């Protein structure tokens, strides 16, 4: 099955939950295993939170853009902001690195995305914004026997 979805919403922290639900709804037709769905939603949350907190500094009223597509059992999602950008991508990817370590940020966002997705690509330009692409191959479930 193939499908696509494009969404944008204001950079409000409550919209992290909205993004999670929208992606669950979009993926429901491929009947994901709940664990794989939870993993993917967690990755998406991390990217959306980063866009809101680091991209827009929580204060600006920018938009967060999420596009998603399904091709058979492969899901590709892009999370984009038009905010600050990431000055050093290598550093940002490092486990435990956070430019806001003094706050309660864990520095584990990219590490979580990388462990739960098959591919994580970062594009960013200083002052122009950031795009994170997440790709995950979901287990085909159609063959599972009907439960009763």
């Amino acid at each position: 099955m193939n499908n696509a979805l494009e969404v944008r919403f204001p950079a409000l922290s409550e919209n992290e939950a909205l993004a999670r639900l929208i992606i669950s709804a979009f993926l429901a037709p491929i009947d994901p295993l709940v664990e794989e769905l939870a993993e993917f939603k967690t990755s998406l949350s991390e990217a959306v939170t980063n866009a809101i907190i680091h991209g827009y500094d929580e204060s600006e009223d920018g938009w967060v853009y999420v596009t998603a597509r399904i091709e058979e059992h492969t899901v590709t999602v892009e999370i984009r902001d038009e905010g600050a950008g990431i000055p050093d991508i290598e550093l940002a990817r490092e486990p435990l690195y956070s430019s806001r370590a003094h706050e309660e940020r864990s520095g584990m966002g990219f590490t979580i995305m990388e462990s739960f997705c098959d591919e994580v690509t970062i594009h960013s330009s200083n002052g122009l914004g950031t795009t994170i692409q997440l790709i995950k191959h979901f287990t085909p479930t159609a063959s599972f026997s009907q439960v009763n």
Partner: protein
Amino acid sequence: IGEIQRYLRDDRVVKVSRTIRDHTIRIKQQMEAFQKEHERNPTLNEISQLLDMKIEDVVLAFDALRDPASLHEQLQE
């Protein structure tokens, strides 16, 4: 008074958060039972069939189950 109580229990005045909470509890129990029996986690459809719940309701309630604490434990392993 019985009539008023019945009215209050009627769907008309039930808030969405309330139904989601009820569904979440049932889904959590079902997931544990399923894991025991099949030695894998269920799909959205399997939960919806076993609980006779609409996929839409499963999606909404399942999201409320997340537990960031266990996630970090998982990553440390």
